[in-house]
């Protein structure tokens, strides 16, 4: 299964764990331009996008926050909630009308502690998302579309 599908909660978590997680969630919606979270803030929630697009961005003094990556349908939004010190490493903003499942991070972490099997499944899922995004970021660092890729062969 391709990463774009396999990393979605519906596929990444076994059905019994998925159902338990979904029961902790609630449906929310955001208008375009709404800030979901700010870099440096407490990572107390996370979201799975149902519809729309969100942008992850970085605070740079004196300029508009540059967008690091955009996230779409099925994407997990927010990773810092699972790892100490539970502080957002980036900011996030709704680019379009956004609907999502919102989860309370403390409740999910408590459930992970109470049920190690559930905890392992969630950590495995979030870890895979993290690895996929790291790999995508590394790929972009290579500057594939740069001029060195298009030189004339003599």
């Amino acid at each position, binding site marked *: 299964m391709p990463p774009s599908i396999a990393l979605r909660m519906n596929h990444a978590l076994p059905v019994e764990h998925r159902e338990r997680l979904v029961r902790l969630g609630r449906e929310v919606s955001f208008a375009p331009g709404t800030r979901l979270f700010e870099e440096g803030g407490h990572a107390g929630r996370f979201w799975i996008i149902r519809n729309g697009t969100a942008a992850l961005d970085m605070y740079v003094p004196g300029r508009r926050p540059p967008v690091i990556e955009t996230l779409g349908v099925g994407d997990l939004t927010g990773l810092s909630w699972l790892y100490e010190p539970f502080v957002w490493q980036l900011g996030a903003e709704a680019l379009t009308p956004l609907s999502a499942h919102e989860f309370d991070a403390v409740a999910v972490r408590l459930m992970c502690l109470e049920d190690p099997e559930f905890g392992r499944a969630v950590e495995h899922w979030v870890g895979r998302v993290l690895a996929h995004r790291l790999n*995508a970021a590394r790929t972009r660092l290579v*500057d594939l579309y*740069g001029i060195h890729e298009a030189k004339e062969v003599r």
Partner: protein
Amino acid sequence: MTAVPVPHRVVARRPETADTVTLCLEPVGAALPDFAPGQFAMVHSFGRGEIPVSASSVQATGGLAHTIRSVGAVSDGLCATRVGDVVGLRGPYGNTWELERAHGADVLVVAGGIGLAPLRPLILTALDGRKAYGRVNVLIGARTPDDLIVRKEIESWPTTFTGVTVDQPADGWRGDVGVVTQLLGRARFAPDNTWAFVCGPEPMIRAAARELAEHGVPRDRVRVSLERNMRCATGHCGHCQFGPLLLCQVGPVVDWAHAEPLLSVREL
């Protein structure tokens, strides 16, 4: 087909990005045979040399055009030509995308950077004969918004889904940011009844083709355009040899079932 460059006049010159232009060409005298989407020409800058360039428009989609990025002596010369100047063309060379095999199926185009240029005539042909195909998806990746070619035209394509993503967004860019494969999750296609056409930097081709195969698109229905050192373009010099394939003859378009094992050999 002639081995001597046939003079063509630049009848229009369209800057695409800071380093890329599209030259619309008409024969000065006798015309070359019609190009098909996916085929390439050896484009000659008199006094400098020649380079292989895929057609970004063919006679059937509005006249012959080549989109050229300035990356060396010959392409610098070609990009600097003005309307009325004459360049040489040999061709058409190579095989085609074979879009006609996708009749009745969904079409998925994945383009990276200037790789959109060879795919443009395929996209225009598919959109022109829209009823012959299922859903048409076009996924485009570029370095920055300013590096997008045919940007205005993209917005007018009546596709099922067109996605554009960039690696480095500029201020004011409200579109997607990230690798082109992330758009696959939003494309609408039935994997087992889809033909995919992929062109761009080779690592992007590998990532896209692998992900398409993992989606369930049959490997022999994923067509990729490979770039090697085309010199004679007639299958004699061997510069474009890619394992058992002479890409100027049986390429540049190769199906993923054949390309994947060859691309895993580093020496090739």
